[in-house]
């Protein structure tokens, strides 16, 4: 009895430590975004000054919008292309299919620093150059394998007889895909889309290589700002982003069970 209780207690402590490890730095940062002192000094004095001055920081706001825009476009492109590619890999047998599928994994494993350098040199060579369009192109290339891997994993649980049944009832290829296959893989598509969004929105390395001085994304802008001298505005913008992205995640988790049986 006593042992069970001790184990239970240790289990709770473990969970608590885990959560602290994950969330404490974030919580402190969020708190400090409301602290008067810009140098993390205590006692804590409440202020929304940093949020107000953030509102005035056009550069940071512009970079935030760039990031959101690029992440959204990257997500849309990757979800459409990635789902289509996954369906093609699922449905058709062709020469070199296994090789092609194997080729999807290295980009996930190759350090972004190397991918970024390679992209910079390549884009420069072929005349794409640098700028937001180059960043977008880079992000799509980085995020696409994630979507294909996640959607393909979901498709592995799809019963091919469902497509056959739909066809036997007179449905054409488009009707089969839209009404039978897509609803089944939707949790995978959503999960893949979230991955794509996260890869793009969090992306620093590749964006850093491909950004031009005036036109940049939020992570690159934050990095530049920290180098110039830390301001609590960074805390403020980070807090906003954390709240928004956590809300998004919780919403999605509420409506979809990833990979689960419906």
């Amino acid at each position, binding site marked *: 009895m006593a042992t069970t209780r001790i184990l239970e207690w240790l289990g709770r402590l473990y969970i608590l430590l885990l959560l602290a490890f994950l969330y404490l730095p974030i919580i402190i940062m969020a708190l400090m975004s409301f602290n008067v002192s810009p140098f993390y000094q205590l006692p804590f004095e409440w202020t929304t000054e940093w949020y107000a001055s953030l509102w005035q920081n056009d550069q940071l706001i512009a970079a935030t919008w760039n990031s959101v825009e690029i992440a959204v476009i990257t997500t849309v492109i990757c979800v459409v292309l990635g789902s289509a590619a996954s369906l093609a890999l699922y449905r058709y047998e062709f020469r070199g299919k296994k090789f092609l599928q194997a080729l999807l994994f290295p980009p996930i494993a190759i350090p972004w620093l190397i991918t970024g350098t390679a992209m910079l040199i390549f884009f420069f060579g072929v005349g794409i150059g640098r700028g937001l369009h180059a960043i977008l192109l880079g992000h799509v290339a980085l995020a696409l394998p994630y979507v294909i891997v996640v959607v393909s994993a979901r498709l592995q649980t799809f019963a091919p007889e469902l497509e056959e049944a739909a066809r*036997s009832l007179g449905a054409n290829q488009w009707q089969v895909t839209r009404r039978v296959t897509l609803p089944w893989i939707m949790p995978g598509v959503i999960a893949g889309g979230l991955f794509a969004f996260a890869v793009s929105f969090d992306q620093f390395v590749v964006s850093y290589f491909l950004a031009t001085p005036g036109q940049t994304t939020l992570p690159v802008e934050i990095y530049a700002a920290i180098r110039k001298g830390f301001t609590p505005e960074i805390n403020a913008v980070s807090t906003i982003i954390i709240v928004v992205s956590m809300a998004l995640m919780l919403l999605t988790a509420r409506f979809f069970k990833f990979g689960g049986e419906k």
Partner: protein
Amino acid sequence: MAGVQVSNVSRSFGAHKALDDVSIDFADGGFYALLGPSGSGKTTLLRQIAGFDFPDSGRIAIGGESVERVPVEKRRIGMVFQNYALFPNMSVADNVAFGLSVRGEAKAVIATEVQRALALVQLGKLGGRRPHQLSGGQRQRVALARAIVTKPRVLLLDEPLGALDKALRVDMQIELKRIQREIGITTIFVTHDQEEALTMSDRIGILRDGRLVQEGPPEEIYNRPKSEFAATFLGDANIFRGDTTGNGIRLADGTAIAAGAGATLAAGAKASCAVRPERIRIATDAGAPDGNANILKGQVSKRIFAGNNSTYFVERAGQTLKVIVQNTGMERLAEGQDVVLRWSPESTVLIAAN
């Protein structure tokens, strides 16, 4: 409704001949079973008729119209799959409505037809459920309703009862047969279960290694099998092998077996005789002499009690014979006992050696 004609259809996958020059005429409104062991080509044949796969050569006609190059979605067939293949993201009613809906029927028409189809399979009140909330038998009925609501020309069933337990399977056999009679649809039914084929179908086609072995009404195939394979695959049979004598065979030890049915063969050729286990009478003595009955002596090696009947295994000249006896309260024969087996030539079928 329409009949289906399969003429000289062949289909190979690489070096494997899945179908080898198969021809069958499925009559309009008939209930037809395609029976065979796994790998015999029965499912391949069904998929050719459905249009999921096209034959390398040969012709398939539905209602007189050549369809061998028409894809499945344009063939107007109804199909029930082994695992039902119900759409998990749709309600029962939406599953049944699918075929009408992709065809662009009006909402009101769809609602009426779906309700009628669900009533036919006795699931009128379950339209709002999801497939995962149904029992196996109910899913089976939904799959059937979905397949027939579009008024297909032919209904194809791929081992539809395979996933059900025994008691439910018997219920569904009766139910399926009732529905088929009610709408009068040509039905082709793939199974490896011989009992199912015997009880449900008007005609049976037995396939083996991509070839049609024999085809005809269940009783005809059961009573007059044309090959050892047909005799042993559809029901149980004791097979004797020897040389033909004109009206039977002579075994290696000289014993003659008289056959009253089957092939007419030139004397001296290799041939077999098949006799069903339930046609043999088993006794401890020879009894009254009977002019033309086949009589063999043997020894009981094993008895298996199965409720209403018992199976005796009788050893005779290195061969084990099966005899099935109804348990009518007669004395049971002990293992090791010497017995006399007796059956009439009319119960014996002469088969050419394969």
